[in-house]
């Protein structure tokens, strides 16, 4: 009897050790830039993942979006990088080319992620020079048309505009028949994204296919920039001096507002504002191209790469991309875009426009290139220089940056 008890005890001990070994959790740190409602959603998703995967613990490190990239760069540079982070498609080549990211090809295959399951353009945004560094979580529609339903009704307009003529004439009608401006336009980088979209609609692009020279100082580029200049100066349907454009639209001071779809939460806060969101009109050539971006999961370069953590991170990524049903941006996984939750949400309206999305060009000096174009564009919008001079100036600077 005593012997039996002894055997039982030994067995119990062995079993307990084995089970603790099996339950050993891999902890990974995940740093992102989501704020507001997105941050709450992300918290929920991470908590759910942790609950369903006892062997992995994902610890979310919160950083505010406005200094996210500064801190990420510092963290990577000082060897304190998180195990997993988020980088926009726009910045991915700049990080990858500077060896700040871990190539993912082998891990992606192991995790069972494959290109066919994803929306192609989003998937391709995770590559730099044919090496994969990122896996897209979503697609951010960075340029949409917000319209004020009440002002449109007052002006007798039923549907949002679908081309340039309608856009201009509707804006003029709103301005004539109401106290509001026809259009409110953002400044700064948001204005650049708007101009970027029309650049591609008109048939130009930021750089040529090889990424070696500017490709906007041409008829198409001039037409695109002229359009925005004309809204201010020729048709005078937009105020040039507004400093808080989103607030202006929120307070009903303009019929239309052109900016990223992520501005919706700010507008929803205004209860007496009845607004709608749709894709931007095809201002040129019946083409609805618009600026898009993605949040990509990336593994920042580590002082010592732990394969166990990378595998855990990949399992997390694999789960996340499959559970974006309630995420604020368009899911990157085709399968999720076909679910009820997505089709019935505001994101569903954008789905048919997905073939028109255009990502920023993959340039390692994207920051300097965009500053050059944005500054020339701003000078033209102010009316300080004409469109041709602005684009010539920007072209010269972009070519010299690309030639370095």
């Amino acid at each position, binding site marked *: 009897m005593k012997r039996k008890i002894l055997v039982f005890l030994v067995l119990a001990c062995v079993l307990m050790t084995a089970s603790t070994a099996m339950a050993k959790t891999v902890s990974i740190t995940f740093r992102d830039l989501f704020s507001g409602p997105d941050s709450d959603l992300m918290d929920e998703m991470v908590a759910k993942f942790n609950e369903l995967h006892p062997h992995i613990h994902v610890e979310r490190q919160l950083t505010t979006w406005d200094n996210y990239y500064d801190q990420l760069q510092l963290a990577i540079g000082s060897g304190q990088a998180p195990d997993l982070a988020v980088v926009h498609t726009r910045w991915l080549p700049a990080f990858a080319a500077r060896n700040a990211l871990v190539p993912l090809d082998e891990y992606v295959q192991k995790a069972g992620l494959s290109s066919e399951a994803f929306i192609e353009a989003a998937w391709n945004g995770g590559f730099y020079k044919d090496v994969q560094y990122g896996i897209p979580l979503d697609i951010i529609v960075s340029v949409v048309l917000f319209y004020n339903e009440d002002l449109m009704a007052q002006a007798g307009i039923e549907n949002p505009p679908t081309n340039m003529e309608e856009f201009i004439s509707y804006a003029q009608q709103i301005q004539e028949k109401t106290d509001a401006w026809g259009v409110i336009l953002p400044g700064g980088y948001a204005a650049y994204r708007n101009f970027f979209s029309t650049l591609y609609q008109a048939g130009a692009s930021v750089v040529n296919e090889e990424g070696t020279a500017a490709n906007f100082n041409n008829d198409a580029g001039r037409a695109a920039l002229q359009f925005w200049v004309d809204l201010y100066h020729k048709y005078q349907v937009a105020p040039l*001096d*507004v400093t808080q454009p989103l607030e202006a639209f929120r307070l009903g001071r303009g019929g239309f507002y052109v900016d990223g779809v992520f501005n919706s939460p700010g507008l929803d806060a205004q209860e007496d504002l009845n607004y709608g969101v749709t894709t931007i009109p095809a201002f040129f050539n019946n083409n609805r191209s618009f600026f898009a971006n993605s949040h990509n999961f990336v593994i920042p370069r580590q002082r010592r790469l732990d394969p166990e953590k990378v595998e855990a991170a990949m399992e997390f990524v694999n789960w996340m991309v499959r559970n974006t049903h309630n995420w604020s941006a368009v899911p990157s996984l085709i399968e999720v875009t076909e679910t009820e939750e997505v089709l019935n949400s505001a994101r569903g309206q954008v789905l048919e426009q997905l073939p028109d999305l255009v990502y920023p060009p993959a340039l390692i000096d994207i920051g300097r290139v965009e500053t050059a174009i944005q500054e020339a564009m701003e000078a033209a919008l102010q009316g300080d220089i004409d469109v041709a001079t602005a684009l010539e100036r920007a072209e010269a600077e972009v070519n010299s940056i690309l030639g370095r």
Partner: protein
Amino acid sequence: MAKAKRSFYRSFKENLTGYMFVLPYFCFFGLFTLYPILQGFFMSLTERDIFGFDIRFVGLKNYAQMLTDQRFWTALKNTASFTLMDVPTNVVLAILLATLLNRHFRGKEISLSMVFFPRLLSISVIAFIWLWLYEPEWGLLNHYLSFLGVGPISWLRNPSVALRAVVVATVWWTVGNNVVLFMAGMQQIPTEVYEAAELDGSVGLHRFFRITLPLLRPTAQFVVIMQIIASFQIFGQVNIMTGGGPAGATRVLVQYIYETGFSYFEMGYAAALSYILFLLIMVVSVIQLVWLRER
């Protein structure tokens, strides 16, 4: 030789307690000030990003690059115009307010608090307050100006106005600090001097220009130098209120250094720009000290 060595040793031994007292400070100074300064200079001689995985020594190339960098010159010009507008406005207004507040009257504490209060707020709060005030269509400023038949003025989206608008916000934010310094300076002027002046028949403006102002010189000197240094380093207001725009009209040096380091991934060049800013501030401060001492 041996004697000199011994006396050095002896004096060191005698002053050991003193050295020990300053040692903690020097440890921190060395670690957090001196080392970064030297490291920054070394950085300015290299081509690198913040990650530091690929560092190339390039000698003085970064400094040479500034000569042809139009953005650098514009940023320098913007910084200089900001300083030239901010420092005189700030100092004159501070002396004026200090004179008004340096008397006994009902509500003195409240008035002083009101002048000093903005200084307690962080720069982002200040920037957002002024973003609202400057809003051309429904901002408070244009609203009241419209009663005077002025405007509407495009404060922050007009390249020729934007920098001035930033100056106004900055003065509002920082003037309280200088008012307090000037008031302290005024209170240090012995009352006998004023009494003697009064006997000689000096009152009002005459007294202010002949006695108060000259005796305030040490304070003024200090305030001007600190204000110039602060103006050269202006960043937060610009970054939040205009982001350096429109069309680069408010891009100041520190803003450009920040962009160069973090958005353009050119940490070596950013370090070189910082060193030039450092030299500029040093030269201006030294000139000022020498000039004021000679008088």
